[in-house]
């Protein structure tokens, strides 16, 4: 029994789980980190990171076998020879879709932290206050001032590059020098600034790639091969950042292949006592005990763990007393935007491959702008020259054709919108009563969709993008909207939201489950609204903040 007892247990090893482990071990707590998938060691296990691109047998394409076994990943753009091992085996771990839902999962150490897009932005009070001001859903229990010092704290450690742009709706942070924009982007930025009287901003993407070395990590080498695992540790991941720090304390134990099946709950003490796991390789069951539990299994799986816990007390699981567990699922809707070509830069070229592009922060329903929908959207984009895959008029065979293709083609610029999705109680996940996974565990069933506000917003996302490109002198503009299935934005959140009232929320202002105060949920599940801003940096800050609170409460004997 004693050997299975720790001060803290962290469920999950992705962005927020890694942070929880780093913070808790750093405060001296003996911590067990449970990961449901394989071990995936920094550098050693990045089998492709140093391989030349021409050494990939299929040059990036996936095989028939992979296409058959990973149908969900093949719905989007993320199926690539170099990362197929990192995606979850969809045959072993299925899910049900009442409505279309694309779930991008990586069950391995580090979770999606090795595979993320690394865009890192602070939320502002325009985001934290929106629900309250509009009377929509419930209010966030925190404001920008509560999280601002924690943004500072995590930015310094993670290493976020960006420029100080002085925008109240996208607050500046503690930044490393920005990854520069290219000449076309800079020119387009200044044309937009002029055209829109300084009301619209095309800024450097703020990204968790190091533009300067920080202790223990080399700066980004501009290869743009982050996903293959960076042998330089050039971007933030659990492996490159939080895990080594946690290991250095000597307080961390990591257990891969550990599927947490439930949190053990003592109904007399109204507290969790530990967790039960299923060893994914041996199918053996084990129990581990701790004073506090951080649940960081990713938005949907954290809800899944809660739904399967304390069912003898609440039939729908731990945290379900409010009736909100598994509800209010959000994402960022995208798969739409505009692009075009731009003339006058034929003598300008690019050196190096950036791990980011530009960002256009939200401008709707701000500072007097008023729309027929609420909230807003931002864009990520970039300008670049055409590659060899372009068509060349009048040339299709021969040496001249080949040599022309080897040279960069014309300049293009494009942008993709990311829109806020409101929390709707009826957008929900539940346990499928009929289907089980490879281990005989219940699977999730997804029932969520975009509604009127998002649909209206989508019309504006494409038309505004086209209008901005036109204002910047871009030609041959085309817009696209390929439709958005929930989850496809990979920013799923909201299934165990924070709030001020246990009757309408699952978590309190410190991310504690109202019904078990020593259980903290600090991944995307905790979000009360989605904003249109990339959420990962906020998960990091909320996690560090909750760890600090948990440690102080432990010291005071309150947990």
């Amino acid at each position, binding site marked *: 029994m004693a050997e299975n007892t720790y001060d803290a247990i962290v469920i999950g090893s992705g962005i927020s789980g890694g942070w929880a482990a780093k913070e808790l071990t750093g405060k001296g707590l003996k911590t067990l980190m449970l990961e449901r998938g394989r071990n995936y060691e920094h550098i050693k296990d990045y089998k492709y990171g140093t391989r030349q691109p021409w050494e990939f047998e*299929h040059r990036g394409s996936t095989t028939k076998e992979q296409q*058959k076994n990973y149908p969900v990943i093949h719905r989007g753009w993320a199926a690539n020879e170099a990362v197929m091992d990192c995606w979850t085996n969809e045959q072993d771990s299925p899910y049900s879709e009442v409505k279309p839902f694309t779930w991008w999962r990586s069950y391995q150490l580090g979770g999606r932290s090795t595979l993320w897009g690394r865009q890192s932005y602070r939320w502002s009070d325009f985001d934290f206050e929106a629900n309250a001001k509009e009377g929509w859903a419930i209010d966030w229990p925190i404001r920008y001032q509560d999280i601002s010092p924690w943004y500072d704290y995590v930015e310094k450690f993670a290493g976020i590059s960006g420029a100080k742009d002085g925008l109240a709706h996208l607050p500046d942070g503690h930044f490393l020098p920005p990854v520069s924009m290219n000449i076309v982007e800079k020119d387009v930025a200044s044309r937009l600034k002029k055209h829109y009287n300084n009301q619209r901003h095309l800024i450097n993407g703020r990204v968790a790639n190091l533009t300067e070395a920080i202790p223990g990590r080399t700066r980004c080498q501009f290869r743009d091969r982050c996903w293959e695992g960076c042998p330089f540790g050039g971007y933030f991941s659990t492996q490159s950042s939080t895990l080594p720090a946690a290991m250095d304390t000597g307080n961390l134990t990591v257990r891969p292949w550990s599927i947490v099946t439930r949190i053990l709950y003592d109904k007399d003490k109204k507290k969790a006592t530990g967790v039960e796991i299923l060893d994914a390789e041996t199918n053996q069951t084990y129990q581990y005990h701790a004073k506090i539990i951080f649940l960081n299994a990713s938005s949907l799986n954290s809800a899944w763990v809660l739904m399967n816990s304390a069912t003898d007390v609440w039939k729908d699981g731990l945290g379900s007393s409010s009736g909100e567990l598994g509800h209010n699922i959000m994402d960022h809707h995208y798969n739409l935007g505009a692009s075009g070509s731009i003339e006058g830069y034929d003598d300008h*070229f690019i*050196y190096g491959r950036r791990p980011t592009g530009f960002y256009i922060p939200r401008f709707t329903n701000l500072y007097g702008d008023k729309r027929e929908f609420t909230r807003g959207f931002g864009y990520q984009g970039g300008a670049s020259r055409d590659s060899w895959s372009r068509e060349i008029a009048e040339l299709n065979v021969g040496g001249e054709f080949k040599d022309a293709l080897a040279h960069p083609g014309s300049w293009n610029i494009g942008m993709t919108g990311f829109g806020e999705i409101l929390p709707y109680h009826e957008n929900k996940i539940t346990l499928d009563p009929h289907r089980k996974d490879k281990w005989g565990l219940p699977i999730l069933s997804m029932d969520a969709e975009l509604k009127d506000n998002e649909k209206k917003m989508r019309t504006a996302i494409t038309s505004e993008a086209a209008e901005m490109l036109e204002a910047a002198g871009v030609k041959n503009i085309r817009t696209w909207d390929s439709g958005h299935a929930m989850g496809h934005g990979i920013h799923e959140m909201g299934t165990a939201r924070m709030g001020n009232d246990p009757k309408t929320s699952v978590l309190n202002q410190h991310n504690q489950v109202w019904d078990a105060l020593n259980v903290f949920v600090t991944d995307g599940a905790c979000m009360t609204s989605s904003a249109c801003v990339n959420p990962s940096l906020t998960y990091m800050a909320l996690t560090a903040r909750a760890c600090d609170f948990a440690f102080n409460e432990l010291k005071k004997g309150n947990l």
Partner: protein
Amino acid sequence: MDRRTAISRVALILGATVIGGDLFISGCKNEHSVAGQTVLNESQINYLNEVAETILPKTAASGGAKEANVGAFMKTMVRDCYSAEEQVIFFSGLEELEESCRKMNGKGFLESSAAERKKLLISLDAVVKEDKKKNDLLKQKEAERQKTAQAGGKPNYLKKNPPASYYAMIRQLSLLGYFTSEIGYKSMGYVPVPGRYDGNVTSHI
């Protein structure tokens, strides 16, 4: 790799849809093509190297498709990534190409001169372009159908792209195989570890 890069990389890999990318949709396949062949043999690899070399020949600037052994790459891709349906089109296409060549030049492809080879491929390319126009229309309709299906709340990700013609396959594999080979990458001035980013340099490497 973020979305922006991923999107551009998908475009880079193909310019359009990757042939072979549809199998997961079409479901189970019988393992054998009509001719029963799924793997290119050595003489077919050599033959395809000659076809690819006509499309992307050696020049003063860089080596050609034959030197990059694009034929061997085609073997891997057709074997591992093409659906059974696509394999049938590809393998029977090898015969069709040879027949077209005999019709036009009065001899087989390998016996034809460089000029005759080029003339043949230009004519095949014109046919492919016509087909592409038709297929683009069909794809557009399919995209609309998917969007409607999604909006109606019905899970539906089927992408039933019309099968490509054999010459579209050969041309695509030639371009992909060449420009993602070491010779191809170097012809574009590829620097493995750039170390920095400069968004405004005045000469291409």
